[in-house]
């Protein structure tokens, strides 16, 4: 029983890490309607940025979040402006190819620049690497913090989208591009902002998870497929869906890894993914537009 509870807790906490990575993806899809296959590579870039700042200036990864967020916002905005925007009218498969191309290029560029070595941040303060006891259970402080931050991120984004003028413009654009255009919303600028915002979430994510995960050029692929599973599970475009989906997948990952086999846990959640795609393509909490 104690093992089960510990596994459950591990799963939920892993869910926090997955959530902070997936939120940006679902945000971008929900607004720009583009599935960004390069999402994982943006995370990888964020991780390298945090790593470099840590190495050269000795800052704690949590501090490096601020420049990482700014950097990724600009990368995302640039990607939207120069790659996605010219293709908005193109067919869906063309956009997929474009983001896949960016993904391959970034991954290999990182391989050229940094080599294939696994790199870890220096963290002499120990903040974000220890663990605390909760009754008989143990929890990693880094994961606890990440979980709290991802909750705050979902809450903050929700507040922003519902209570600010810009947020409303973003939601209007997401719901009907042309109607928003007629209401005087600069749709292209909203898209650039939204793509940047989605990527900026990854800047936050990379700082939060850097104490726990080393970085390497294919780091993105390690997480991105899981992020897709989560986002489809929660319903593409749904923030709270992504959060709940993350926790579900985290728990499945943790339990399946122990009770079935460590190397089959991905099989389990990919099977769930396929089942969701086939039987409920709008996701568990989707707004019913998933098959668009």
């Amino acid at each position, binding site marked *: 029983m104690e093992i089960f509870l510990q596994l459950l807790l591990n799963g939920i906490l892993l869910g926090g890490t997955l959530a902070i990575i997936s939120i940006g993806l679902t945000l971008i899809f929900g607004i720009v309607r583009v599935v960004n296959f390069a999402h994982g590579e943006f995370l990888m870039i964020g991780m390298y940025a945090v790593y470099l700042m840590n190495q050269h200036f000795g800052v704690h990864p949590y501090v490096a979040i601020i420049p990482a967020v700014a950097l990724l916002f600009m990368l995302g905005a640039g990607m939207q402006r120069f*790659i996605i925007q010219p293709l908005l009218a193109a067919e869906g*498969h063309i956009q997929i190819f474009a983001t896949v191309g960016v993904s391959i290029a970034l991954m290999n560029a990182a391989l050229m620049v940094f080599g294939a070595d696994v790199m870890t941040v220096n963290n002499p303060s120990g903040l974000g690497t220890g663990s605390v006891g909760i009754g008989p259970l143990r929890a990693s402080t880094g994961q606890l913090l990440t979980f709290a931050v991802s909750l705050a991120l979902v809450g903050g984004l929700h507040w922003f989208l519902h209570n600010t003028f810009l947020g409303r413009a973003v939601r209007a654009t997401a719901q009907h591009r042309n109607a928003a255009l007629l209401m005087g919303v600069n749709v292209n600028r909203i898209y650039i902002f939204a793509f940047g915002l989605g990527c900026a979430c990854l800047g936050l994510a990379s700082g939060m998870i850097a104490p726990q995960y080393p970085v390497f050029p294919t780091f993105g692929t390690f997480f991105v497929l899981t992020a897709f*599973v989560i986002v*489809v599970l929660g319903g593409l475009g749904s923030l709270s869906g992504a959060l709940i989906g993350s926790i579900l997948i985290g728990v499945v990952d943790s339990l399946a890894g122990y009770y079935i086999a460590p*190397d089959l846990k991905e099989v389990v959640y990919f099977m769930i993914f396929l089942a969701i795609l086939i039987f409920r393509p709008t996701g568990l909490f989707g707004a019913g537009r998933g*098959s668009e």
Partner: protein
Amino acid sequence: MNFLHPRVYLSLAALSLLLIIPFSTGSNFVFHLFILICSYAALATAWNIVGGFAGQLSLGHAVFYGAGAYVSTLLMLHLNLSPWIGMFVGAAVSIVLAVIISWPCFRLRGPFFALATIAVLEVIRLLVINQHDFTGGAAGLAVPLKIGAEWMLFRARWPYLLIAFGFLVITLLVSWKIKHSRLGYYLIAVREREDAAQAVGVNAVKVKLIAVVLSAALTSLIGSFHAMYLTFIEPGAMFSLELSIQIAMFALIGGLGTLSGPLIGTVIVLPLAELARGWLGDAGSGVHGLVYGLVLVAFVLTIPQGLVGRFGERVSRWVDKLPGSRTSSPKPKVSIRAAHLSTTIGAPILVAENLHRYFGGLHATNDVSLSVKEGEIVGVIGPNGAGKTTVFNQLSGFIQPSSGVVKVRTVDGQWISPSSPAEFAIAGIGRTFQIVQPFADLSVCENIMLGAFMHTRDPEEARQIACEVAALTDLTQLLDSRAKNLTVGGMKRLEMARALATRPRVLLLDEVMAGLNPTDVTKAIEIIRRVRATGVSVLMIEHIMQATMTLSDRIVVISSGAVLMDGDPQTVVSNPEVIEAYLGKEYNHATA
């Protein structure tokens, strides 16, 4: 295939360069490069059958490649079976796999299909790693080195090149055959507009499955061969997402859905990346991947339709100036539309009994019964939102009624109840859509041919039928224009023409005159008359009363989902209830 045509002899000459260049240099590296080109071009061509012709963006095609490689290697290891036989077992396994994967996934559109194929690829890869006692796990398997032609294993490179070239030729032939057959047209139709394709009798799931099965089998055969060439296989390389993306990318760069595109894309990009890797060798390991990524983004941003899509027509025009390309004289016209008037004119042909249809709480169709006699024109009128189109959708299988039946009398007098749009079309119910659904990128002629394919497999014959139908619907001058360039009137006539080409016995017309100018309306009325003269029954929803009154033998009024009245035109329009349904109570009071 006419070998004297310049398109054919030039293509064959270009293709033979793939053999001539390596044999004339004799260098091992060049042989290796050309073996890679031939096998990747074959993979890309096979992928294009699904990704290009059928428009299903698969990013998990390495599943079939890996399955071929593993099955033939395992059969060789355990049963001492030659890969020449094993590869067919692998292809069979891949076909089964393809059907299991694709059947449920075809419902998914756009990125969802791509994601599902990636997920399947990952699942299979992880399972292969997990079952290590059988598959060798992550460490991989070495192919037993039994040198000899019967084992597909050679010391020299050249036999491998010949085999790879053979596979390339086979995939190109299959692809050529598909493109020039009814299947090719059907695949394009389903890719462009699934609804309209079903309305001309295309079984969308079936044609997509055929495409996937062919593509999977070919991919698997090449996978088996590649395993023998590499002599070592491991899950990471065989079931790789990277490989899947690479072959899709070659096809995209050459031109999706074109015949030569995948080959041309491979010939251009693969050597570029291989050479970049060679030159920069030590400078970094990511170079060739970086080249792939950048080339892909650059192409997508500049010529997303691919090289062949962009420049193909121009090149073909130059080529056609070469000797040998005289256009074949048109065949003597065979009249397809045999003038045999049915002997059962006047008997019911389409009957709907007590149709009910609910959308949630909305009772959209309420106890609708109607019957259409052979050779009759029935007008369906009713206020906006009355549920006329919903009834049409049930009469053509696009919506299943919640209760009630639709029956069609077949040519030999049987009554049947079809269950899908395609079955309705085959039973002789042709329809148009209120919102026109042309296959925009196809020519008018090809649009009509798609209808004609219901009764013929031969594209030439379909073209004949298309010409005849075009004459009937005043489209002859527009046969070669793209459907998207037509005027509203032209599009509506095209809708009618496509339905007529299926040689329907009942034609359902959903507001074919809405939005037309008076000249076009007169034209449309004339066409409907001509259609009826050939013995076809017409059921038409129409708001233009001039047309309804002059054409209809009988008018059915639908209001709030129910049949309000059914009678001859004069009685119907003077009926107070009908006037009330259209114009409101006040109008009756005012005139009373």
